[in-house]
């Protein structure tokens, strides 16, 4: 990185921390610290919700996903607008009316203390592990591609986040989110514009899209129903809606964002703003990945973008075979570039038969180079036993470092840091709030006031330290990381089921809901261990199991629900 890149990166991070500290000053009560003063406007809530959901890996992985697999990943987000509308009608007004500080308070009013603690506990477990990965994954990519020390990277992100999150609480987090979204938007928009600009001068934007589409990278919508297919229209609309209902309705890291609204109206508008922005935003990030894919039709990419596992091959007896494959790959890609040029020229000529013929030749050349790449990946797998070699997370940043101009590299890396910091701050703030409200305040009977602010700061600091420690440990987890990544879907369905039962199955009382949740959770984990069902469906399975089982269990109890009142 050049001096200008370092200056842009350092300036952006300093701005985020100082802005968060400045705007977050003045919390004197527990409610002010955890609830952010409940005076946030809709646009601040909306930005904060988007920033919490948007982690650094969103920017690293999503373009790579389009490069490797096409744009169908956008279907994952189709449930979000549906969930935003459903939550705006149902749970959000209820949270405001009951003036709760965490989502789980409501469960004690409806069921009992143990059900509240179960839901809070499931959240603390899954979120505290996930937040560690939130900072570990981008730190790993940056350390591999830039040669930065992994531990220093984790420590730097964690420390910067904790400076303003521990000090200012929810308000500091929300205002820092607004500055992080500004950096992220600038970085990604400029990267997209520059990628389109850096295509060969005779390749128009339309040509680029035809090349990407011809090679299967613009497959946005897949209407074929297949429960084992992770991303299609139906898994997005059905499984995705349940996932988003659970994430935005019952995950404290999101609930805390919109509970900081000054009114139901402001909170609703903030949540709906997210519902409107997220799908187009993900589409544009994927389109950027498709453009990077087109860029590499006219420039030769490395055989494998992740240099870490390649080093292992080079140190193995297969080093010579891998080098030979690299030579074959360069030759295959040069042939592919010629075919891409021929296809673009044919398109400009307008001869339909020639366009179809050159397109077919381009597809064949791509298949040939992919066959060489697969042989290379097989050697990498052999040299790294027990791992699934993947370079998806490395493609975009490798492209940025090699192909974007000085200054923009620093801005994109600042966007990656901002994504990492925005998720971590929202999550440790929510972990701290749940610890204070659902454990300290409820079990120990701590009073609100300055003392609770300090308890909140200590809890947030402790969770931040735990996240950094887990991020360090994650480096040794290897292939288990993928399992931890889908941890959310293992728990979300169960938590959502508890909430849906609370709202809509009136005859169910505390014990039935509690034991149904335990059985459902075992069932979801069994699905994960013993079936090939895609993880998005776990949300539906877990939710349906809790609702169904709790109703069955309630048949042995006296009917009638406890009235839902404010505590």
């Amino acid at each position, binding site marked *: 990185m050049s001096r200008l890149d370092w200056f842009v990166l350092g300036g952006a991070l300093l701005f985020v921390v100082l802005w968060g500290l400045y705007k977050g000053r003045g919390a004197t009560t527990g409610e002010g610290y955890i609830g952010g003063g409940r005076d946030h406007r809709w646009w601040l809530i909306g930005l904060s919700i988007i920033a919490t959901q948007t982690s650094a890996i969103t920017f690293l992985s999503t373009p790579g996903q389009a490069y490797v697999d096409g744009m169908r990943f956008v279907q994952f987000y189709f449930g979000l607008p549906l969930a935003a509308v459903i939550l705006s009608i*149902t749970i959000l007004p209820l949270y405001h009316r009951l003036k709760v500080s965490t989502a789980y308070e409501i469960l004690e009013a409806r069921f009992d203390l143990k059900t509240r603690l179960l839901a809070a506990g499931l959240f603390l477990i899954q979120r505290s592990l996930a937040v560690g990965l939130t900072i570990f994954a981008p730190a790993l990519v940056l350390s591999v591609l830039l040669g930065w020390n992994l531990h220093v990277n984790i420590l730097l992100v964690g420390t910067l986040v904790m400076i303003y999150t521990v000090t200012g609480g929810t308000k500091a987090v929300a205002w820092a989110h607004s500055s992080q979204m500004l950096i992220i938007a600038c970085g990604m928009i400029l990267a997209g514009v520059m990628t389109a600009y850096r295509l060969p001068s005779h390749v128009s934007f339309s040509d680029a899209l035809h090349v990407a589409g011809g090679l299967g990278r613009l497959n946005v919508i897949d209407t074929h129903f297949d429960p084992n297919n992770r991303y299609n229209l139906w898994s997005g609309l059905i499984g995705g809606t349940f996932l988003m209902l659970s994430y935005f309705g019952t995950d404290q890291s999101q609930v805390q964002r919109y509970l900081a609204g000054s009114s139901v109206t402001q909170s609703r*508008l903030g949540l709906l703003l997210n*519902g409107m922005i997220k799908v187009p935003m993900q589409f544009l990030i994927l389109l950027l990945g498709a453009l990077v894919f087109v860029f590499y039709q006219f420039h030769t990419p490395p055989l494998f973008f992740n240099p870490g596992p390649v080093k292992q091959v080079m140190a193995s007896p297969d080093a010579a075979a891998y080098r030979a494959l690299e030579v074959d790959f360069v030759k295959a890609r040069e042939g592919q570039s010629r075919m891409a040029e021929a296809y673009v020229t044919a398109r400009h000529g307008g001869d339909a038969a020639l366009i179809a013929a050159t397109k077919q030749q381009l597809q064949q050349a791509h298949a040939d180079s992919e066959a060489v790449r697969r042989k290379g990946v097989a050697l990498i797998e052999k040299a790294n036993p027990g791992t699934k070699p993947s370079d998806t997370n490395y493609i975009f940043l490798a492209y940025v470092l090699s192909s974007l101009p000085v200054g923009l590299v620093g801005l994109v890396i600042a966007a990656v840091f901002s994504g990492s910091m925005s998720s971590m701050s929202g999550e440790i703030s929510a972990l701290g709030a749940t610890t204070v409200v659902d454990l300290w305040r409820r079990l120990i009977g701590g009073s609100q006031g300055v003392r609770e602010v300090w308890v909140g700061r200590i809890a947030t600091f402790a969770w931040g330290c735990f996240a950094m420690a887990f991020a360090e440990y994650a480096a040794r987890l290897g292939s288990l990381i993928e399992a931890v990544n889908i941890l959310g879907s293992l728990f979300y369905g169960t938590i959502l089921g508890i909430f849906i039962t609370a709202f809509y199955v009136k005859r169910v009382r505390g014990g039935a809901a509690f034991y149904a949740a335990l059985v459902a959770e075992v069932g979801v984990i069994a699905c994960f261990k013993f079936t090939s069902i895609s993880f998005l469906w776990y949300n539906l399975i877990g939710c349906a199991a809790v609702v169904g089982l709790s109703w069955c269990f309630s048949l042995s109890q006296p009917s009638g629900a406890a009235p839902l009142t404010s505590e």
Partner: protein
Amino acid sequence: MNEPMNKDVPPLLGSWKRIYAVVLGELLLCILLFRLFSWAFS
């Protein structure tokens, strides 16, 4: 506990139903445009 709590009037469009329709309409429009996009460039 499911009684309507729509006393707040949105600052735009006059009712929440219209705002929800806009959000869901945008999703539908996105799906249709994405489908067209896939078809046009495949």
